[in-house]
């Protein structure tokens, strides 16, 4: 036995060393390195000279990842899919093939899995494509990838994905909400569909379900709607897009696809016509917008929309809080807007344009922007409780003209006002009208007063 012990010791030491080397070998030769080497060889073919070729062939092999904190994802797909942004790889075989139509959804900003599915954290093929147990989001089949557009672009038409629009339309018109809740609205007979795209990522199942519910969901009370194949596909697209994707501000702000049509919608919503004219049609206090997109760069126009004072100090144009893509949409509209557009917008107005409208619109914008609605209400109705003030609440401004003249109101806005006490013995009311003269210019205050006066309700006559 004694002879054996050191022999065992030696044998086991060798085995330990061997196992350690096996572990190191296993760690040193992961799948992705082979793919990267293959890609480098492919790239080297296209290099002009031997020095460039050798530089490419000896490039270091590293895991490549796109960190996407705004989408709460980490995508390592480009570790193997090295040719996605390389147009010379159009005819290369996967995983090196070029990805057409990437912009603006470049991997550095969007990653890959938010559209394609799969497991971004993984670095070997089976795991990365999600074809493993315990990963709920496998790669979407090719024909369904466009459904992912709806994960972010939740409103408006998505160019290139008519199925989404059709799916949304079918959902609302075929009465799905009668049994299914979506975003809190609907019946409880069927499952809540708010997260259907996150829960069920099998397009096959969804499509078969729409063609005949009972083939996949036995004893389901859902009736057979006899959808056509196209309709079933449209609805499948819609379902796949229903995830509650957590997105940071950047992504939310570019969600709406900037189109001239959307820009026109915003133009009407923000009442631009009350100051501006297009080709002479409209108001005259602001400049003519016809062809403005050709006279100034997109960047200049964008800046104008964000901060009019910067470009034109002293400008009466209010600063609107518009998202990046909303501004892009307006500029897109500017590019194509004509006098006819202005005419049609004018004719749809409830009241004809007056000279006052510009000032009133600016006043309305200031009223919203500086938080007056916080106490006085969106409809100027007041009503916010203010203990121990006379009346017990913040007053409505709809009858201000009965108790005050315009000059008095302007003075109150500039200097502020403490509300009169109901009971002088009790403590002062917590809410009061602050002084705005150091924040608002006199013209702004006047415009707010104009706005208020435009909404005054006359006291009923006795």
């Amino acid at each position, binding site marked *: 036995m*004694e002879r054996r*012990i*050191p022999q*065992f*010791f030696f044998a*086991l*030491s060798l*085995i*330990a060393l061997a*196992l*350690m080397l*096996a*572990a*190191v070998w*296993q*760690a040193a030769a992961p799948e992705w390195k082979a793919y990267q080497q293959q890609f480098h060889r492919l790239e080297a073919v296209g290099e002009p000279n031997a020095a460039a070729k050798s530089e490419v062939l000896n490039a270091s092999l590293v*895991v490549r990842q796109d960190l996407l904190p705004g989408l709460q994802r*980490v995508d*390592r797909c480009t570790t193997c899919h090295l040719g996605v942004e390389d147009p010379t790889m159009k005819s290369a075989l996967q995983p090196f093939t070029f990805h057409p139509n990437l912009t603006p959804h470049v991997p550095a900003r969007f990653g890959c899995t938010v559209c394609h599915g799969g*497991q971004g*954290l*993984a*670095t*070997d093929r089976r*795991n990365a494509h999600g074809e493993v*147990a*315990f*990963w*709920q989001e496998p790669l979407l089949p090719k024909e369904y990838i466009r459904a992912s557009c709806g994960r972010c672009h939740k409103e408006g038409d998505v160019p290139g994905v008519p199925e989404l629009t059709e799916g949304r339309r079918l959902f609302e018109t075929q009465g799905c909400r009668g049994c299914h809740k979506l975003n809190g609205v609907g019946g409880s007979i069927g499952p809540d569909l708010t997260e259907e795209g996150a829960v069920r990522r099998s397009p096959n199942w969804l499509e078969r379900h729409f063609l005949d519910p009972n083939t996949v969901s036995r004893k389901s009370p859902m009736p057979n709607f006899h959808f056509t194949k196209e309709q079933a596909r449209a609805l499948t697209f819609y379902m796949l897009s229903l995830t509650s994707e957590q997105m940071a501000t950047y992504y939310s702000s570019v969600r709406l696809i900037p189109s001239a049509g959307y820009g026109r919608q915003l133009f009407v919503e923000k009442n631009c016509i009350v100051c501006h004219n297009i080709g002479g049609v409209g108001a005259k206090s602001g400049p003519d917008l016809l062809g403005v997109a050709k006279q100034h760069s997109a960047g200049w126009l964008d800046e104008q929309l964000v901060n009019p004072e910067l470009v034109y100090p002293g400008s009466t144009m209010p600063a609107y809080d518009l998202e990046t893509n909303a501004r892009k949409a307006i500029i897109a509209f500017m590019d194509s807007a004509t006098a006819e557009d202005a005419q049609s917008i004018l004719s749809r107005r409830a009241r004809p344009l007056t000279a006052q409208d510009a000032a009133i619109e600016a006043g309305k914008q200031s009223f919203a922007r500086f938080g007056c609605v916080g106490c006085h209400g969106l409809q100027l109705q007041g009503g916010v409780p203010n203990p121990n003030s006379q009346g017990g609440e913040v007053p409505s401004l709809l009858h201000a003209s009965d108790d005050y003249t315009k000059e008095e109101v302007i003075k109150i806005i500039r200097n502020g006002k403490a509300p009169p006490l109901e009971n002088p013995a009790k403590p002062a009311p917590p809410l009061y009208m602050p002084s705005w003269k150091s924040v608002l210019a006199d013209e702004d205050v006047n415009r707010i007063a104009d706005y208020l006066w435009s909404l005054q309700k006359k006291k009923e006559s006795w």
Partner: protein
Amino acid sequence: MSTDKGKSELVFLNVWLHIHPAKVKKENLRVRHTFYLGFITFYLFLILVTTGVALMFYYRPHPPQAYQDMKDLQFVVYLGSFLRNMHRWAAHGMVICVFLHMCRVFYTGSYKRPRQFNWVIGVVLFLLTLGLSFTGYLLPWDQLAFWAITVGTNIGSYAPLVGARIRELLLGGHSVGESALLRFYVLHVAVLPAVVTLLTMVHFWRVRKDGGLSRPVWKLKEETSTQLVTIGPPDAGVPLAVVPASKDKTYGLMEVVTGKPIFETVSMEEEEDTVFSYPYAFFREGVALLATVTTVMAVSLFWQAPLEELANPVKTPNPAKAPWYFLGLQELVSHSALLGGVIVPTLAVLALIAIPYIDPNPSRRPADRKWAIRAFTLFVVVNVVLIIVGTLFRGPGWAFVPPWAHIAGAE
């Protein structure tokens, strides 16, 4: 190291080695005496500490980053999956080996006087090992982890009076969430390892104090239990104790000096049956260490530790099972929460702790302890059967489903 003096000095002058005696009894080195289970358990603990510290460099105890870090260890960190596997399999191994070690100590009667207290320390170490395994189980933050701990802490809450409070302290809330993960992490990497280390020190020290490893059971045949020896201070009239003669070495001198004599030193009769710790004991321990390490490494190269999908509090897997060493408990609970989940396990643990004090039989020979051995064997078998039932025979809804039955319609 070529002289006897050199070999002795190597041991007692070395900070790492001096817990060993300079010489050990040859018979204690036999594999079939202890199977080196104590050493193996300790080595597994060392593997766990080493791999655990390595993993700590890449793990954040906050959901959901914890799960992402598990994926990073699996896919991106160099040797990440290997180290994680080693940690997981060594953990399961340690639970099994500490249990087997307890069985060995029982079957060789090595808990009897003077080793009673060390047995108690051992039981506490066993419970701490389960605790370490349980707290570590939550850290991957996947469905397996989340629901196993949900079930486990709910079983614990059935304890009367203190159950709900203990659950609240463990979870830092009403249900398993961020606070639970952080608390379990602190317990797992700091508190429990520190306590285990301290108690292990006491455990090893007590082995020496109690006279080293017990004599192998097959050597006991040679003794007659009727031969008695009187012991006590040399000049006192009344002896302190009259005990069966034992060849076990004791260290009574220290106590005599302090005035509290317990045993007198008994002369060593088998001087020729002892060998120097270096090299005999050390090489054997080295072999045991290597065998442990290579086994854990080999298993880790080929079997992946599980990682299911991200923990989802609103989606309960059916069935939701506690970690395997608690499945026996969960099986009991499924029959009766209070009786099965609280009373029986508590009584079992108390009985375990009390064994050395309620066992009046001073003999360690198996022939003299038939009923003790039968009782303990029953305890082991019942535990194993319960765990097997809980693992293999319980399906959705905790229904009895043999593992060979096909579960139709499972989605």
